[in-house]
Structure formats: C-alpha cells, structure tokens
C-alpha cells in the first residue's frame, strides 16, 4: 500500500483526494501552481508544494515538475485527479521509472486504450456493440453507396485523419451522400493531407450513459451501475444522474454487466468508465473508456456507499478487489449539478473574481464537493468548475424535490454562476419526465431556459 500521496491537481478534486487519503490514514502533499497558493486544498493540506506558475503547461501539465515535487517531498505515489496528466501514458511511465506509484491504470493499460478507434476494436472484439459503420475506408463512390445501404441512413461521413468532429458531414439520402463525398474528400485532403473517409451511422436523439467499473490487476472486476449524463450544453455535461431514467431494469443490468466483462477481458485495470450512446429503442453503442476518476463519480458513490477514490488508490497499490458484484448494492437515486463560474446570460462565458459570500446547502442526502469559501478569488487560468452539488433521494422524484431545496439554499455571491440555470432545468417538463436527449438544451436553445431564469429572478 502506498503511504504518502502527491495530489497533482487543483480545485474540488484535490480536496476530494485529500479526504480519501486522510480517511485511509495516508499522508498527502498538495502540489499547486502559484495562482493556487491560497486555495482551500492548500489551506487544508498538512503539506503543500508549489510546482510552477499559473500557466498549466508549466505547472499541472509539467510531468517533470510534478514528479520532481513528489520526489523532493518524499511521496511514494502520485494521484493525477482528472484532466491534466491523468490519462497520459508517458507520464504514467515516467512516474513508474522514478519508483512512484501512478494512481490510475498502468502505463501499458493507458497506452492500450489511448486511441478511440483502437479501444472500439478491442471492446467490439469482446462483444460490446459499437456504432455501426463502413468496414474500413471508402475506396470510391460506388463502394461508399454500397456500404451506406448496408449501414443505413442517415450517415456521418468522417475523415480518417480528423478528430473532434472536424470535417464531418451528414448525409440522409444516397444523393446527399454522393454530393458530400466529393466535398469531404477535398476538404480532408486540404485539412489533413489525407482524403480517406469512412461512414458511421448517425444516431439521433441519443442519450449518454456510462458504466463505472472497478477492476484489479488480477482480472477481478465489478461495476457500480450506470450514470446518465444526457443533460449537456455543447457537449459539456451539466447534470448527471443515476439510475438512468431512460433505460429499463433489464437493459440496465445487461449494459453494466457486459461493460465490466468486456473491460476485464480487454485487459483494462483500475477505475474506469465505459461510455455508451443509447438510442430511443434502448440500443446501446460503446464509444470510449475514460481511464481516470471522473467529475461525476460521486453519483455512483451515493448509490453504492463505495468510496471510489479510496478504491482507486487501493487497486493502484496492487491490492485485490476483494469482493464480488453481489456485494455492490445500489440504492435510491442521485443527481449531480455542476456548479460553474459562468454567465448564463452572456453565452455562458467563464467568469473569474472574488466570491464574496458562499453558503453551502445542507440536509438529508445533500453533498457538496467544492473548493469554494467566502473570500475565494477564482483565478482566470483554469476551467470554470466551482464545485458539485450531489443530491440523493429514495427515488428520482424525491431527489428532484431535495435538489430544488438545495439549489435554493446554495449561495454563491460576487461572481456569476450557472445556479439559476440549474433551477430552471428542474422546472423543465422534458427533464422531469426523463425523456430528454443530449441535444435537449441546444435544441430548445439556452434562450428558453434563460427566459425561465429571468422570470424567476424577477419573481
């Protein structure tokens, strides 16, 4: 078991990891940038160490600085949190080369699951359904039309060399496909120097559902159920909940069990999340693995009572999981609200500045994970996440009712936040019925919610 952990992250997750370490009787050292010298994590820590200037590239993203900090402060492990260096196999390898334990999957595992396309192949080979598409690259128009017939319309035409949605085109008919192919080829050649294209089925009105898994280094694994992350704005998750209101119990069990089985068989280790798209018929398609602790992990903790960060540290130390699936009991319903420093009326622009006043909500089933305090100066250098409100109730209705109360109690003054936006979503029919998809907010338009927000403010 590791004994002294360098926490190489900031904000709420640094505090989350610090608490897990303390609960396990481990020592922890908080690594921080100059801009975070006054952060709550640093104030709470027994020890802290400054690793660089505000700029992430020279602090939280600097592998050499983080490892050097671990060595000079006498740590034997590094917890990277999420983002930053958390899924960097090169960093994991460097950590091991300096005889430090990387709290996460090993460098080999990270490398094996580094490419999305490679990961899909690995898990498809283990029986997970993936989004249907063409076999390999399109040779010519005739081949494309043939493959399109087989896969079915509507289709996405994707450049092989692209990424992040760049250069994609939607085709709903063979005619649209033929027209788009020519344009796509020349665009891909110009943008990536490679005009190979492939086809993927376009799934409309899908939900984003992910399965949390814990797998030790000896092939033992369990899942902690699924989380539904379908409330998104421009592909950014805002609200996550479990269980998913969109899938029935039979699908739920089948999805989670097939996910953990495939991940174990494909050689995945440690804490991870398998992401799926689920269509209206309940068909699910595997997309990718997140090989890290995720922002929304507390949702699963609320249902299971399992401390996922503690388990992550234990598994990374080489311990056996020590229990089976039947020991994992999921109870009730949990919803997480991401509290962001952003101005909802100014196109959700990130905000920085002094939090004059902060009052957390309380009561049964209420959990607040945050680095906020009254007088905290939110630096402009990092992402806008201020914290997470997680609410548990015996069922979804009860959790929603408690969420309304908690979001009314929660006070963050001095800086614009998306708290009013959350309050508005809790009054939305689509959200309340559970029948929404990932495009809910973008399709309805933030405007509809903003009107609700404005009305609420005036009331």
């Amino acid at each position, binding site marked *: 078991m590791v004994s002294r952990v360098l926490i190489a992250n900031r904000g709420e997750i640094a505090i989350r990891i610090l608490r897990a370490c303390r609960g396990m009787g481990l020592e922890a050292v908080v690594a921080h940038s*100059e801009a975070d*010298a006054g952060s709550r994590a*640093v104030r709470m820590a027994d*020890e*802290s*160490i*400054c*690793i*660089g*200037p505000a700029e992430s590239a020279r*602090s939280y993203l600097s592998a*050499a*600085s983080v*490892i*050097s*900090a671990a*060595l*000079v*402060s006498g740590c034997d492990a590094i917890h990277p949190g999420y983002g930053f260096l958390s899924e960097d196999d090169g960093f994991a390898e460097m950590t091991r080369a*300096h005889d430090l334990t990387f709290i996460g999957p090993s460098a080999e595992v990270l490398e094996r699951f580094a490419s999305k396309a490679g990961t899909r192949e690995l898990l498809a080979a283990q029986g997970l359904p993936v989004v249907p598409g063409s076999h390999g690259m399109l040779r010519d128009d005739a081949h494309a039309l043939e493959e399109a017939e087989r896969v079915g319309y509507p289709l996405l035409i994707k450049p092989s060399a692209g990424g992040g949605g760049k250069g994609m085109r939607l085709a709903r008919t063979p005619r649209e496909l033929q027209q788009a192919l020519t344009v796509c080829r020349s665009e891909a050649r110009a943008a990536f120097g490679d005009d190979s294209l492939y086809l993927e089925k376009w799934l409309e009105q899908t939900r984003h559902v992910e399965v949390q898994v814990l797998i030790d280094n000896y092939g033992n694994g369990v899942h902690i159920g699924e989380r539904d992350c379908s409330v998104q704005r421009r592909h950014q998750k805002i609200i996550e909940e479990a269980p998913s209101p969109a899938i029935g119990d039979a699908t739920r069990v089948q999805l989670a069990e097939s996910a953990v089985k495939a991940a174990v068989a494909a050689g995945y280790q440690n804490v991870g999340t398998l992401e799926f798209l689920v269509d209206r018929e309940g068909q699910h398609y595997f997309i990718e693995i997140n090989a890290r602790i995720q922002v929304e992990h507390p949702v699963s903790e609320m249902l299971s009572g399992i401390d996922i960060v503690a388990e992550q540290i234990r598994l990374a130390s080489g311990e056996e999981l020590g229990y089976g699936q039947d020991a994992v009991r999921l109870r009730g319903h949990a919803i997480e609200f991401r509290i962001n420093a952003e101005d909802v009326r100014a196109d959700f622009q990130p905000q920085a500045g002094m939090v004059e006043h902060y009052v957390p909500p309380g009561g049964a089933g209420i959990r607040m994970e945050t680095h906020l305090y009254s007088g905290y100066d939110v630096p402009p250098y990092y992402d806008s996440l201020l914290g997470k409100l997680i609410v548990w109730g015996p069922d979804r209705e009860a959790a929603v009712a408690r969420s309304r109360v908690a979001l009314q109690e929660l006070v963050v003054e001095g800086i614009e936040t998306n708290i009013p936006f959350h309050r508005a979503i809790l009054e939305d029919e689509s959200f309340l019925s559970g029948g929404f998809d990932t495009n809910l907010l973008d399709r309805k338009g933030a405007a509809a919610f903003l009107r609700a927000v404005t009305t609420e403010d005036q009331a």
Partner: protein
Amino acid sequence: MSDDPVGQVPASADEEPRNGLEALTDEVLPALIARLRASRLGELEVRSGDWRIRLRRDVNAHHSRAVGGTTGAGGQTGTGAAELLGSVARSPAVGYFTPSPDLALGASVQAGDPLGSIDVLGIAQDVTAPDNGIVSRVLAEDGQAVEYGQALADIDPLEADLETDAADAAVAG
C-alpha cells in the same frame, strides 16, 4: 516544504581565521566596518587567499528586516522590508538546490549572474540574480529541496542605497 531553514549562514566564531590577519586589520577592518554601516547588509564577508573576515551587525539594533522572511509554503509572498529594500533570487523550479561557488554573503552580482541551479530530475535549471547588487542573505543550503518560487538569496542594491543609508546614518548618529 515550509520549514526549510531560512537565512542560516554557517558562521561560527571558531572558524574565524586569525593568522596573518593582524597585518591587515588596521586598513581593512575600518574600511569594512564603514562599508557595512553604509549598506543595509546584515553581514559582510571578505575572503582573500586562505583567510576571511566576516562582520555581522546586530540586526535588531538597526533594520527590522524579518529574519526568516519567507512566509508560508510558497515563500513567494514575502513582502515587507526585504521586498522594499532589494530583490530576491527565487527558484525557477521544484527540485534540489546547488549554490554556485560564488554565492556568498557580500558577493557582488550582476543581473543574470548564475547563483546556482535546481536539479529537476537530473536536469539543471539556472538560478539567476534578478538585479545588480550584493548578496545579503543566502536562504537555502546545498542539496536542499526547494519549491517553485522559493526565495534562495536576498540581493541588496548597494550603490543606490549608499546615499540614503549615509543620510540615515548621519541623522541617527
């Protein structure tokens, strides 16, 4: 990393050289005392060949420079006397500190001069003098673990200070 020994300059009396010194005390010592008085230095050391002279003033009697003036973990927030009077050479990285042979009390340095290096996983990063001046305090020892931004040496701007110090001395005297 907050409890590093700050401002510990090895200087025990039994190390003070004596041989061959008498011949020079008549001319050297008075000059050095004048120099120390005119500056804001707390300590002054002169080496020549195999002997050295170190003078130390009673800091409490004159300047109230906060000894151990680095505050908290960062050390970069040290304000007050030290900041106002001179500049501070800080660590450019987190790692182990090795002072350069020239980094000594009373040493005259130019902006950009190397004062030592920080070993970051075997790669040395230079610590440089932020300004021209005189090294008035060395704040980290050879081999000490230091964090980014940690104060390693105080540099006093000697020339610029001479006049005002002389004026102060005249008033005080």
